[in-house]
């Protein structure tokens, strides 16, 4: 199970094939290259669909016969068994594995890639566009599957590259600024995270199998977590807190949490639709994933010490994000801020230190991963067909674009937490846990739900409803007498899949919820309860 395991395949195949598809048309003679360019999108969507199928087969148990309901934190499935050295001298290995925290994210990634390809099926220079999306897929999956912090970090930074080009080349008018800001901002934050990772690295004890021949340390996440659970990874409490904060900066920027969130609206507004979908759907979740996997798991005492900080960050993102949403006039910007707001709930869920809250945070990562791409696909369609994202520049669009209006309705309702849609499950779970831990403070997130409903309804009312004439409505000035149209078949298909999944996971959340719940309980019992009891004992 080295490079041929299923996880290696779903990571490396899209990465390599994406690279090949990107480079090959540019080096081959022009006539072959022309024909190839035309078929790249077919190959890309075929490949990514095959990977989605493979991942689904892993989930249902056809491949690997995995019992997902018995995986706690620390147990990994599909784990590569023997260390495969990448850099032997410093202890870097190809070590993959997945569990209930990462698998839903992997499944989500493999799902969103073909859908985002479908939504932007007609992208200009599609041969590079779709192959960049494939590279993106490999990098994103790599983040979630690698259990070696060095490789994790490589993939973490690798995700920036295709996204940078997606924004830079296919973005809106202000794309240069946005892509540079996106790259430098998040890169700076992750460099701080790297410092934290290196400090952890130099505190690992030599392991006969994984330690580097030169340094005597290793990047193995599993061993590090085990070491931290048994002996504590870093002895000095101050250094532990420091490392924890460094990690937090890296992850909170990615999430993003207020106050390090301002790269997100710029990046989203300028990014192409597919880029936005992946950015909101998966890339933001990397922050929450890394935070749970590394910061919380390795430094439980620090996490408990900084719970007030987490609550503050979560509250700030949630409440402030929602209020800022209300003041936005650009549809995509509003949706971007709503992502900030929803990500705040994840921090709140973690801060509750309840299995229910953790499971809610995990489900939020997943649910937001389905709903927010739908929101961005809708926003992208507005941009595509009506050439503007200005809220209020058009009215009564529901008449011209009934399908677009329908998708908008479903997505908006899902995002504002309507029951029987995916987001509600996460919201209610986090709320229950929050009440149990923090009592009346729950009123703040609860009242924010009113704001959330307010900005979503207002934006909907000002775009698809309300016009003097049922047959015309008001078209935006940017249309220039163009005939208004509904979404194209491929946009429709992509949004349809996301909409159906939003409903499906709202009615049957236990498909993923059960494994998340088991994992969360195990996590808290194994890693946090000890620290919590210590904290209670010392007044």
């Amino acid at each position, binding site marked *: 199970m080295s490079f041929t395991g299923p996880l290696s395949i779903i990571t490396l195949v899209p990465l390599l094939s994406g690279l090949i598809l990107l480079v090959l048309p540019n080096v081959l003679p022009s006539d072959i290259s022309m024909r190839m360019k035309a078929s790249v999108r077919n190959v890309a969507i075929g490949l990514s669909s095959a990977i989605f199928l493979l991942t689904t087969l892993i989930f249902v148990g056809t491949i690997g016969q995995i019992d997902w309901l018995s995986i706690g934190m620390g147990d990994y499935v599909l784990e590569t068994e023997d260390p495969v050295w990448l850099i032997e001298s410093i202890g870097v290995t190809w070590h993959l594995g997945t569990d209930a925290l990462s698998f839903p994210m992997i499944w989500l990634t493999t799902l969103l890639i073909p859908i985002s390809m479908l939504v932007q099926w007609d992208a200009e220079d599609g041969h590079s566009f779709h192959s960049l999306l494939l590279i993106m897929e490999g990098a994103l999956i790599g983040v979630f599957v690698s259990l070696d912090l060095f490789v994790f970090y490589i993939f973490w930074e690798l995700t920036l590259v295709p996204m940078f080009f997606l924004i830079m080349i296919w973005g809106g008018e202000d794309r240069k600024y946005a892509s540079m*800001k996106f790259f430098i*901002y998040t890169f700076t934050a992750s460099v701080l995270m790297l410092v934290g990772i290196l400090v952890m690295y130099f505190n690992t004890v030599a392991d006969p199998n994984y330690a580097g021949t030169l340094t005597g340390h290793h990047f193995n996440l599993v061993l590090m977590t085990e070491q931290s659970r048994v002996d504590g990874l870093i002895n000095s409490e101050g250094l532990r807190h420091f490392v924890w904060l460094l990690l937090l900066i890296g992850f909170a920027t990615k999430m993003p949490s*207020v106050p390090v*969130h*301002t*790269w997100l609206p710029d990046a989203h507004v300028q990014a192409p639709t597919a880029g936005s979908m992946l950015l909101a759907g998966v890339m933001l979740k990397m922050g929450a994933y890394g935070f749970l996997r590394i910061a919380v798991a390795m430094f439980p005492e620090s996490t408990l010490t900084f719970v007030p900080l987490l609550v503050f960050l979560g509250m700030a993102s949630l409440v*402030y994000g929602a*209020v*800022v*949403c*209300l*003041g936005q006039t650009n549809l995509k910007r509003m949706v971007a801020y709503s992502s900030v707001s929803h990500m705040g709930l994840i921090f709140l869920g973690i801060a509750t*230190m*309840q*299995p*229910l809250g953790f499971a809610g945070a995990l489900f939020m990562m997943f649910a937001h991963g389905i709903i927010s791409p739908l929101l961005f696909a809708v926003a992208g369609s507005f941009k595509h067909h009506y050439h503007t994202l200005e809220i209020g520049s058009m009215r*009564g669009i529901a008449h011209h674009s009934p399908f677009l209006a329908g998708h908008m*309705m479903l997505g908006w*309702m899902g995002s504002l937490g*309507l*029951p*029987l849609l995916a987001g509600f*499950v996460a919201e209610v*779970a986090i*709320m*229950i*846990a929050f*009440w*149990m831990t923090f009592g009346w403070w*729950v009123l703040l997130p*609860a*009242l924010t*739900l*009113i704001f959330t*409903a*307010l900005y979503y*309804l*207002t934006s909907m*009312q000002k775009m*698809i*409803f*309300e*016009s*003097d*004439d*049922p047959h015309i*409505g008001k078209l935006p000035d940017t249309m220039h007498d163009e005939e208004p149209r509904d979404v194209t078949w491929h946009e429709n298909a992509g949004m349809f899949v996301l909409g159906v999944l939003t409903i499906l996971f709202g009615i049957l*959340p*236990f498909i993923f*919820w*059960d494994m998340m*719940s088991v994992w*969360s*309980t195990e996590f*808290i*019992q194994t890693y946090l*309860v000890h620290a*919590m*009891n210590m904290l*209670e004992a010392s007044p």
Partner: protein
Amino acid sequence: MNEQKNQEWNLLVPLAPAIALVPVLVVMGVEPIDLGFAAIAAPLAMFPVVLLIGQIWNGNEKWVSRFKEGGILALSALSVSLIAGLWMVLDFLGAGEKKVHGDPLTWLDFDVLRYDGTQWNIDAGFTNISFGIWLDPISAMLLFVATFLCFLICWFAIGYMTTDDINSNRNHRFFAEFILFSMGMFGMVLADSFLWLFIFWEIMGLCSYLLIGFYYWKESAAAAAKKAFMTTRVGDVFLMVGLLMLYDIYGSLDFAVVFDNPSTGVGEAPVKASELQPALLMLFIGCVGKSAQFPLHVWLPDAMEGPTPVSALIHAATMVNAGLYLVARMVPFVDVDYYGVMGMEDLGIIIAWVGGITAFMAASIAFVQNDIKKVLAYSTMSQLAYIFLGLGSALYLMSTGHRYEGLFVLGGALFHLFNHAMAKGMLFMASGSVIHEMHHAHHELHHHDGHGQHDDHDEHFDAQDMRNMGGLASKMPVTSIAMMLGSMSIIGIPLIGGFWSKEAIIAETWLGALEYEPLLLGPAILAVLTAGMTGFYMSRMWMMTFAGEPKHNAASHVHEETLWIKTPLITLSIVTATTGALLAFFHIGEFLSSKDYSMGLDDLDVTKALQIAFLPEKRTLMAVGYVTIALSTFVGPIIAMKVHGGSLKEGQEANVAVSWLVSLSAAFKTIDVSGMANSSLSDSLRKRLHFDDLYDWGISKTIAPMAKFSAWFDANVIDGIVKLVERTSIQGSHWIRTYTTGSTRDYILMAAVGALSIFILIMGVTI
């Protein structure tokens, strides 16, 4: 014309398999309680079918004529629910059990960590969230109301919606949302836990939003939809917080767990009133929002922007009852004779006050409304408030140990819910019939006048304005009878429908006020006053619409209704007229109040109920009862006749059932009130006592500037700092670049300075 209409019965053929489905299921061995799943699943499954087929076959000839744009499909789904609901209710009544609980399905599985004083442990006392079917007298009654009215009003809607040009090719959306709503209502009634009650509650809220905004291009409709959603959302958020608190107390939200013994919470810990009462008050705020009570009442009148069948179903007969249902569910918490928690008196008093205030306020605003649907909307609000008042009194009486009286008024309140749903559903359908025909008459007139295009009609003509109507009694016999019976039931004319239940509520509230708690006196007085006011405004509505001479050309050209519209009206007329008999023969009030709590209540029967209403032992109560009857039956209607009565146009004749009323009104007609209409009181009543203005002002002064400021703050301060860092670093590198002079001398100097600094540093560190 008639032949064509008769042929339309063929369209009902698709209903046959739907009607047969439930008996087949039963024969196959499905437990009657599990039919609840079928009742919920049928409309849920039909929803996407109608929506998608409608979108694809939009405008298709057969789809329009044979399927009524999905109406027939919707009706067949609702007939499955109707049969399932009836079957369940009959089975329940026959079995004579107190409650039936189907096997719940686990929905969410999770663990909860609790600190037990020494360490943190996984607490096994918390159960998971599951979904099952729960049937007890309250939900059985509501299940009947919901399935019966959903079916009838869908039937009505086929006639009402599909004949309007303006709706053409859009009705599939109406019917799809209609059955999704029905699903929500059935689900809420049948759900076996507070969480699922809330989930379906929200689904109904969504459908209410979608259906109010059905004419989405109308600015007023879109705004009304948003207002409805937002206002109820405010309540719902508190409701959700209440659920969290309940969960924390009981470790579960299942009725089976919570009601098993409401005085002990999770881990057998005794429940304190100081914890439970805030939780229930939070739930009550949600009820206030959903049932449009003061101060969250502002959305209901605006909600009349929706198509009339929607007003009939959602905003009169079913969804607005959700709040009442939830309050009725609170009874076991306070029932101190039966595991209730001590010290919860305040809850009932607060609920009663909210009810009393709303009843009076809504009735007074209804005085000045000219829109026929708005009158009914305020009347709905006012009647719902009566029920809240009754429930509040019940909660109060029970929490102080007066179980007998408490159960009696609980039964009365729930019976009023039943009566009101039937009567108000019918009234709205009747008003829809009037509006529909007015609209068409107006339309045709314009065609005959050669005024041309069909979009080009008189902008100022309002088919809902009663000032354009009058004298319709001769043209619309069925509608006028239905409207009369419905109004009588709402007013509480003795022996008809709502009379029984209203008397019970008022009498028991007075009993509570006089005997036990002076604080209840306020709502009690308001209730009596409102009874008289109800008599006035309901009579006024009838007189303005059906008596007198036509006040607009269109009103003299209305036709009779189609069978689609007539059938439900006739059915409900019969129900409304006979609920008094229902009370006597089927012991409805007794059933509602006592079945779940049969201890010591065997002597509560109908004669007892009548005695409490008419011949109470206390003189004061008897006086109250007769004053109420006098006000509502005589004073209110007679004043209405004096102001708005009048005989029909010469040569026109109403049918026997209503002609007596018309002539009576003509006999009383004396006063001209145009002067009073301009007083400042009626002006502020017309402005709905300025609540809407106040809320708008509040929002524009707080939320709007806050949002604007935050957007500015984010773009200029938070992002400004980022940009500042960016600018500084660019400038810094520019500055550093100026040292790249290219002159060897400078470089040697810099190298020397650098070396020196390093040397000093090293020296400093080593020493």
